[in-house]
């Protein structure tokens, strides 16, 4: 099937063509128990996004909680049958039927809420980073370990079907050996929150306050660093960082543009850049191997083969695409089946947002009593790396990470 340039752009595939790695859409049919009772604490953007995915999965959102009235009202509009609370303790004391709670509040509020949810006997999905300090992150991981309930950290790569498939290639001759890594997250956004009063503005702008923020490395980088942790099975041993307020010179101290180099134990290096000043390229991660490179962009993924790499059997099913000066092939797992249904084009991007798969995995773990794909330990270590990277930027220097630092206790 031919895919022209316009289609490629419409599908948001980005500026590179290659081998798109995607599992068959039908492979990921979900079997979540209908009306599984859950609650959400924090109904800002992330909480509302979680609510939308829960609704698609058929879960029953029993209660919403936020101490910010406009946000709670906005959440309530989207989940009409949910009871709304401005106090988490009151919600937990009242809503006994709730099995699982999604914590989608500002990072520095996670610890107290995790403790409250564990005390109430709830399964917990906690957004990442888990905390804004190492002390809080350790406390959360420790509390989760002591609970008999499921605790999932909101690191979505490990639940993402595109990333899972890419990782399966990472461990084969198709990739062979890791050479280097690169990632970026670029948006044009002030990172300020819309607020009607100075008091509310100060409360909602927690990401811009030095006392509560983990900066771009923590709030964004944590999610992307974990991709490399998961693929390589390693964590960095040192981080070099620098950053500055390049665009939003409004009195903030938290850098709006950062550059990082995360070094691993055998000389591997992850170069990372994040900015609020320019959106070019968006968010992606690249892994360079001896035989190929992966570019992963959450809803899409591509493999770029070296000319001397062996031909893979699956390439016969791939679409050929020309984009700028590159010609690549688009591969979709189950391509034969999709082609027979004339749905190859549908399969180029994931049918759902990454969040859908993370939420779905969590609900499955809760209902089946299985360990989550991203537990408290993975969440703790990724958070620790994010906090260290933020420190490297703030100090404009190098932060060493020892194996002991990565221990939860």
């Amino acid at each position: 099937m031919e895919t022209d340039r316009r289609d490629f752009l419409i599908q948001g595939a980005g500026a590179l063509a290659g081998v798109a790695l995607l599992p068959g859409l039908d492979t990921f049919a979900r079997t979540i128990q209908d009306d599984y009772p859950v609650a959400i604490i924090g109904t800002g953007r992330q909480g509302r996004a979680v609510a939308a995915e829960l609704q698609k999965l058929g879960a029953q959102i029993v209660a919403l909680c936020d101490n910010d009235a406009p946000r709670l009202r906005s959440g309530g509009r989207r989940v009409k049958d949910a009871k709304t609370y401005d106090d988490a303790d009151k919600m937990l004391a009242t809503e006994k039927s709730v099995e699982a709670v999604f914590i989608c509040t500002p990072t520095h509020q996670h610890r107290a809420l995790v403790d409250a949810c564990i005390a109430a006997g709830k399964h917990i999905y906690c957004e990442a980073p888990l905390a804004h300090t190492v002390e809080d992150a350790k406390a959360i991981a420790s509390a989760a370990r002591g609970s008999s309930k499921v605790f999932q950290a909101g690191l979505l790569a490990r639940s993402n079907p595109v990333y899972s498939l890419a990782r399966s290639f990472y461990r084969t001759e198709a990739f062979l050996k890791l050479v280097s890594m690169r990632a970026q997250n670029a948006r044009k956004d002030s990172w300020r929150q819309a607020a009607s009063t100075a008091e509310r503005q100060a409360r909602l702008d927690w990401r811009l306050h030095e006392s509560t923020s983990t900066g771009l490395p923590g709030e964004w980088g944590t999610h992307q660093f974990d991709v490399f942790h998961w693929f390589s099975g390693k964590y960095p041993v040192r981080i070099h960082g620098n950053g500055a307020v390049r665009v939003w010179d409004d009195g903030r101290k938290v850098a709006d543009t950062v550059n990082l180099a995360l070094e691993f134990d055998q000389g591997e290096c992850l170069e990372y850049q994040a900015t609020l000043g320019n959106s070019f390229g968006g968010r992606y991660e690249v892994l360079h191997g001896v035989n190929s490179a992966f570019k992963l962009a959450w809803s899409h993924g591509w493999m770029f083969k070296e000319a001397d790499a062996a031909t893979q059997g699956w390439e016969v099913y791939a679409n050929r695409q020309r984009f700028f000066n590159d010609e690549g092939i688009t591969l979709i797992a189950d391509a034969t089946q999709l082609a027979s249904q004339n749905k190859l084009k549908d399969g180029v991007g994931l049918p759902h947002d990454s969040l859908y798969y993370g939420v779905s995995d969590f609900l499955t773990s809760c209902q089946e009593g299985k360990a989550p794909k991203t537990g408290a330990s993975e969440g703790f270590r990724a958070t620790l790396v994010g906090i260290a990277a933020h420190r490297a930027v703030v100090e404009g220097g190098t932060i060493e990470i020892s194996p002991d630092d990565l221990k939860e206790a």
Partner: protein
Amino acid sequence: MFERGALAAMGTRFEIVAAGAPASQLRASIEEALEEISLCHQRWSPFSPSSMLSQINRSQGEAVAVDGLTMELLSQCQRWHDDTAGVFDPCVGHLLSERDPRRSGHEDSGILKNASRDSTFTGLTNVDINVAKNSIRLLQPYLQLDLGAVAKGFAMDLATDILRDAGVPSAFLHGGNSSISTIGHPPGATAWKVQLPQSSEVLELRDQSLAVSASKGQYAGEHLLNPITEEWIDAESGGYWVRSNSAAESDAWSTALTVNSGFSESIQFSMPDDMDWGPLRMATSSNANEKTSKVSVVKSDHWSFLPTESEDKI
């Protein structure tokens, strides 16, 4: 004095200008409002295979669990459909797909259009909107939804709510210059003034919305469908503007009025009491590219920030 932001989404350009608060507050409010519009685009784009709308259109009779806003919008569509005796109808996606292969589900419609079609096509009565289960089910296999007539206005209503919650006292939002929402009035004036296309008529808006719909499309010829006969509305048949308290309402009713004007025998329905409306003056030019459904904002000494006619060719 004014902060301004823009976004390309839903096949058009959205723009927000706001005033009356500190610049950083206005900027943050505009960013959040535009992000909400972007999320609406992701939900309801017929061009993206991963959108909620595309998933519904691919469902082939299976119930699809949807998010709360999709359910709210489709429930409103049901009301508009009922109130206009079926003239307003979002169940035309499969017909639009036949003209535009970029729309998702096109392959499916190509397969399914050969299936026997119910000769009594009755629009949204062929869609099971289950509010209790939060699910949508298309009852006819060939049917596909298209929310293009109202998604823009609905997104702007959400964006307007965000600006209001953020304490923005004065704002003007437009999507493609054909759907408009306002908060308060511009500094130095008592209302936002909007000039209708091909006309010297000026409408005032203050905490109100306006939509214009014309039978001639933005770029070429006919673009509206008669949902009863499944025929395209004659491009020269006319257009309407509607002013109300909601951009989605204005979108829906202006579309219904325009579609109805293309019927050989108009269908009778009553307009709500809380809105006013009128016909658009149609261009006499034979230039197919002439934009007949674009409003322009009247400038004053105090606010002259919206695109001029020449700038509007972005």
